[in-house]
């Protein structure tokens, strides 16, 4: 028991929390932007896979790491565009279209990876992002090691939370987006085009999701392999509900989740006799429990999953 407690006081655990949270932060922010505009994006799992593949491949082919991230965003936006076209102007089932996008984006990623990359006994690797110590701040004991000795995409993720929160709450663009998710007819009455707003929201959201995947292959690991997203996308969809569709709470949710994950990873080495599968199950079980706890109180965007057709109520 003491050992379990000691784990919680190590800086390396808390540094790992931020590392594990990073792809979730990107994913949950992306999903949140889509849903605040009224579109559920179950393509997330596949879009993250595609971001992971495209980001990695760009670097493998000689691009630099930031170009890799940019290409991942682009690929994510393309997939988001397909989902948006099917669900917004055509008003098709967001559930089925999203699952279709997940199947398509992951299958396409695996296909192109096999086609373009020679895989030997081990998957080929790239030089990934290295931790970047923020000058001066990283010298602060404990906090410096936890907060200011991360890889650059982690800083991007943390800043993005602030940017998205500010955009949604304080800008006319954010207001229009939120209104599209609550009452698209009112948006139309204001002379704005809810269809266009939704399409852009889904594309931007999908681009951000793809960054979460790209983090896995360009910072957390240095190679790409099938199945590497491991349900992180679905966990993000659960986290959006947990966060009541708010960016700040989404950050807290992702961090709590990552804390739990980092803690169970270390606990595995301390506690003996418990099968490792039980530890690995814990994050998924936790997501379901979190959903049960908040589902009743959650304030869902009014028009989420309601297709908008002009002049139809």
């Amino acid at each position, binding site marked *: 028991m003491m050992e379990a407690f000691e784990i919680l006081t190590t800086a390396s655990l808390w540094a790992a929390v931020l590392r594990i949270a990073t792809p979730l932060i990107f994913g949950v922010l992306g999903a949140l932007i889509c849903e605040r505009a009224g579109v559920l994006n179950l393509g997330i799992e596949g879009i993250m896979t595609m971001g992971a593949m495209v980001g990695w491949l760009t670097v493998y082919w000689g691009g630099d790491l930031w170009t890799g991230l940019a290409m991942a965003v682009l690929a994510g936006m393309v997939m988001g565009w397909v989902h948006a076209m*099917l669900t917004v102007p055509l008003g098709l089932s967001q559930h089925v279209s999203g699952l279709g996008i997940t199947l398509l984006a992951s*299958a396409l990623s*695996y*296909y192109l990876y*096999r*086609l373009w990359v020679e895989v030997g006994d081990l998957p080929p690797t790239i030089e990934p992002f290295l931790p970047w110590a923020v000058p001066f701040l990283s010298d602060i004991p404990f906090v410096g090691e936890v907060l200011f000795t991360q890889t650059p995409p982690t800083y991007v993720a943390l800043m993005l939370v602030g940017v998205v929160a500010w955009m949604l709450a304080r800008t006319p663009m954010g207001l229009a987006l939120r209104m599209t998710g609550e009452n698209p007819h009112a948006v139309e009455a204001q002379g704005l085009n809810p269809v266009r707003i939704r399409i852009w929201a889904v594309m931007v959201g999908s681009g951000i999701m793809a960054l979460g995947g790209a983090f896995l292959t360009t910072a957390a690991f240095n190679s790409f392999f099938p199945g590497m997203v491991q349900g992180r996308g679905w966990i993000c969809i659960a986290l959006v509900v947990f966060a009541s569709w708010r960016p700040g709470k989404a950050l807290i949710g992702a961090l709590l989740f990552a804390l739990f994950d980092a803690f169970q990873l270390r606990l595995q080495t301390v506690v003996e006799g418990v099968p490792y*599968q039980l530890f690995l*199950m814990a994050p998924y079980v936790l997501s379901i429990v979190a959903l049960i706890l908040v*589902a*009743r109180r959650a304030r869902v965007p009014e028009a989420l999953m309601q297709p908008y057709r002009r002049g139809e109520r």
Partner: protein
Amino acid sequence: MRFERREEVSVSALILAPLGAVLAALVLCAGLIAMAGVSPWTAYAEMLRGAFGSRLAVTETFTRASPLILTGLAAAVAFRARLWNIGGEGQFYMGALAAAALGHSVLIGWPLPLAWAALAAAGMAAGAVLLLVPALLRLRFGVDEVVTTLLLNFIVLLFVGLMVEGVLKDPMAFGWPQSVPVAAGLRLPDLVPRSRLHVGIVLAVVVVLVVWLVQSRTVFGAETRAAGLNPRAAAFAGVPITATLVKVALLSGGLAGLAGAIEVLGPVGYVTTTLSPGFGYAGIVVAMLAALHPLGVVAASVFVATVFVGADAMSRATGVPSFIADVIMAVALLAMLVALLFTTYRVRR
């Protein structure tokens, strides 16, 4: 441009829609095959040959189709009631585990038909319970079942790992993580000698017919459809929505569990963590291509099995990655979604 609901959906449109979707998928994927430096014609011809070119190929294709019929049917009955069961994969594994656990020793000595009935019931119960949990969570707490069923797939796969490395581990498997085998006397008989094709496919088709009759001829069938089309109107008309959805969940989960049980009792004989090459997820594609119709599920399953078995052979012959099969499935699913729009709506300017 606006959409207007058609008065009634014609049967020919419902048959043309999947054909059009499949054609669109094959045309779009031809570009991807060409990128691999292989002529799409050659590749598709190789796929057909790989799926139907020999006696062995044909039996393999139908062996692959049998679990897909049941997982596809599982998705179709659930989607019809707007119960988004994406957990077919997990339910399949729970059914498989139940069949292996009971079929290894517990049921030895039972009269054969009774033992098979018990094993099928156990598989169905295991799958049904797994879907009952998310269904009740939705009805009781308003938790979206898409996310919970998806997350349960990951949990179940880890649970399978736990079982085949733990209490159900086969001590005779040279340390491989696989479950104890089903007793030889309880395995389902072969349909075609010297092949893996077994009576499971006949069972699956019988189940399809039963479900079709239930859906078209019983009150429960009508209630399911009403709950799916417009739950509020259905509730107003006196349809017990909660009870209907619980029944649908039990049926859907049970069908996917049955698929797992039959796969273990038929061609495989034991459980591993790679027992299913995504039967649960492919079932969703099958259900959509079938336009959620039970009879269409059989045809769609054969098509999906053809693509998967054919792609493996085609990949060996031409070097095109076999992941092309998954791409074809995904594109066909999305194309079908669009095609269905035009069967139920017409476009007006």
